[in-house]
């Protein structure tokens, strides 16, 4: 039987508490991983490792979080994600809401796009 959104969220919340050392109450669907929950780059890998175990799935590099897009000069120019970079991101990560990022594609704001709900949406597409 496919998991419900609530079931997925509860397991993701558990993962955030263990990986980031935050309290359960801090983890809401709208919490941003970096801004609200204090995640750093290594935490993104930790989260992926834990989700793979918890949901018994394989998460390929660059599937849930961006892989090496920032290293590609075609995708980043003057600190902004280029149109082709944005198109690539949207295609590879349909679970991410880019609507606000479209207006100001500052690379420093890229991590803020990743919320708890982003992970839940991704996992729902994998476990359904």
């Amino acid at each position, binding site marked *: 039987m496919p998991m419900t959104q609530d079931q997925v969220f509860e397991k993701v919340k558990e993962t955030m508490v263990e*990986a980031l050392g935050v309290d359960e109450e801090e983890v809401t669907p709208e919490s941003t991983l970096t801004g609200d929950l204090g995640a750093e*780059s*290594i*935490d993104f*890998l*930790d989260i992926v*490792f834990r989700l*793979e*175990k918890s949901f018994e799935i394989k998460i390929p*590099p660059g599937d849930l979080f961006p*892989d*090496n897009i*920032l*290293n590609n000069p075609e995708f980043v120019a003057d600190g902004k994600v280029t149109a082709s970079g944005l198109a690539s991101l949207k295609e590879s990560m349909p679970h991410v809401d880019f609507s606000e990022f479209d207006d100001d594609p500052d690379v420093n704001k890229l991590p803020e796009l990743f919320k708890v709900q982003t992970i839940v949406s991704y996992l729902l597409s994998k476990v359904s």
Partner: protein
Amino acid sequence: MRWIWIDRFVEFHPKVSATAIKNVSLAEEHLHDHWEDFPVMPVSLMIEGMAQTAGILVGQARDFAEKVILAKITKAEVHELVLPGDQISYRAELDTITDQAASTHGTVFKNDKLIGRIDLMFSHIDQNLAGVEFPEENFVFTGQFFRLLAGLVEVPPRPETSQPRRPEAPGR
């Protein structure tokens, strides 16, 4: 003093687990520097001991081709003091390893009694997402770490040990 916080590996199962021991001696300066009148083994250095045990396990899993750097102390709990005369055992298990990173689960024993848990994450820094470049030479795994593995696993030949080093003349 050398920055080595394990004395010997007592078991090494490539890509699975490794156990290293450290004998704590009253002669070690750091015991006295921590609390002057009450010499104990600092937990921070026990974390380093686990990091060296687990880091070598991670490095060996990729034939020491990667530069393995401690990136995150996921969990560190030690429930008892370790005193001079005690023997610490660090048992590390490899949880996950990818091109970019690895996670390990560790347990700490004092004279065979379980006293703590130290879980770590390591980064393969040449694969970092920021694209930062590091020197080609593997500055992480040096001779002192390879010597710990002698007789347990094969280690790849390194340039500095491929030819016998000629002793320097006295006074140089």
